[in-house]
């Protein structure tokens, strides 16, 4: 690209996640998200906190176009979520890894198949897919369980399968909803480290969590929601992204 001619979409400094005055109600008059504005930088690691019902899951759902905002603008990877049509939504989702609060694993498929499904939809060649799945399962400590079905696993193990599926595609954005909710403290730290290292490789990570001890331990940027409103946006201690 010629120097000085930088296209809008390829601007280096463009934040991968931007929300402006976004509101969302499921029931008229009750806003699950209320006038929230924020930006996340590329490679940033951010905690999203707030009490149960504060709107954390809803905010994540807005970001991968599972829910539509009633008001405001959401730009994810340069695309306006409210305007996505047809193939727009699937092609955005392929670039965003999501760890769901309820895992969303396929009960009758092996752990390996569950993780590979994210690669299947983009047509990753079998060999490459196999080695990527193996590597990511090793990272979450489940390589020995890869032939089992999810129901044969503990809650914490299922959660790690969900994390592996979100990470296997090396997404540009990782959205994790209570990814340590079922893990004991040691394992929680390991999983957070995994996501931190994804962030150092350039992935923008947003982790919704109740776990104040994690937030306090890492001192990363923390966005707190309260009744759907953005109550607090605490920058990372020591100025690290």
């Amino acid at each position, binding site marked *: 690209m010629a120097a000085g001619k930088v296209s809008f979409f390829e601007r280096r400094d463009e934040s991968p996640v931007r929300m402006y005055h976004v509101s969302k109600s499921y029931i008229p008059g009750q806003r699950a998200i209320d006038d929230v504005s924020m930006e996340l930088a590329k490679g940033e690691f951010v905690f999203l906190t707030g009490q149960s019902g504060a709107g954390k899951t809803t905010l994540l759902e807005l970001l991968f176009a599972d829910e539509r905002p009633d008001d405001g603008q959401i730009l994810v990877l340069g695309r306006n979520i409210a305007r996505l049509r047809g193939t727009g939504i699937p*092609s*955005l989702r*392929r670039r965003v890894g999501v760890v769901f609060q309820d895992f969303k694993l*396929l009960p009758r498929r092996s752990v390996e198949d569950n993780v590979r499904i994210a690669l299947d939809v983009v*047509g990753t060649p079998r060999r490459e897919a196999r080695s990527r799945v193996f590597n990511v399962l090793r990272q979450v400590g489940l390589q020995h369980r890869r032939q089992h079905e999810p129901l044969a696993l503990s809650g914490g193990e299922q959660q790690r399968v969900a994390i592996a599926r979100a990470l296997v595609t090396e997404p540009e954005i990782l959205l994790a909803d209570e990814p340590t909710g079922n893990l004991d403290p040691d394992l929680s730290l390991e999983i957070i480290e995994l996501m931190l290292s994804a962030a150092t490789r350039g992935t923008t990570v947003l982790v919704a969590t109740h776990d104040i001890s994690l937030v306090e331990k890492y001192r990363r940027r923390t966005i707190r929601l309260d009744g759907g409103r953005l109550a607090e946006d605490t920058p990372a201690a020591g100025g690290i992204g």
Partner: protein
Amino acid sequence: MSRVFVILFTLFRSGIVGLRSAAGTALISAVTIGIALFLVGAFALTIVNMEGVQARFSQKLSVTAYLETDVDDEAALEIAERVATVEGVEQVTVVGRDEALERFRGMSGGAALLEGIEENPLPASLEITLVNLNRTPQGLGILATALDGLPGIDEVADGREWIDGYARVTSLVRVSGVAIGTILSLATLLIVANTIRLGIYARENELEILALVGASRTFVRTPFLIEGTLQGVVGGIWAALILWLAYLLLMPQLEYGLMFLLGNAVPRFFNGGEIFFLVAAGAALGFLGSLASLLGWRR
């Protein structure tokens, strides 16, 4: 490019996984397609054989005009010359009275019948063949009108009634075949659509997850189309096999009954292309059935 193949492979595999996971309902729907195609195929087989008879009969068609007994061979020749000028006539052969007698003697039992009869009772006749284009009921009609106006002609045997009747029976069989085929196809479509719909419900959870990890609509839907098409192919092969077995087993028993419809012709089975068409019809039914069910499904 290779990604496209990987995706196609994945989709095909998941279509087969879908078939296996609901083997019972898939089998029912394949059998349904099979039964429908078997019935339609049986009609089609009857029709192709009847049309074959009609075509062969028309090819060999010749008209015999019997002359009055007082017409001698010389006069017969004169009449023949006039007949030869009629539109559509290809050739006229005179069978003289003596030759007619010879032919009659040659037939089994003919000699015995002629015993004791002194004078030749047989008339001379004209054997008339028509050009290809005129070997039709209409062509025969033109000839019959022309012969009516000629003196010396006693009786014309042209098989026109037989051809007309046969054509009517053939088209009756064809119309009922098409009607039954249409009804069965629609019923089959409904059953396939329902089977696929059940499969969609059973896998709704999986489909939702696929969509959440970024599967396109096509990616989510294609396995069901593959599933339906495979059910149809299995149904079509099924139908062809059963038809063939029925052909082999029933043919000897039905030979006499079929003689009424087919004359002396040996009934044939479908050729390769026709079998392929039967299986392709099954595939089309399966494909359309699953398409119908996907069109009615929103997500």
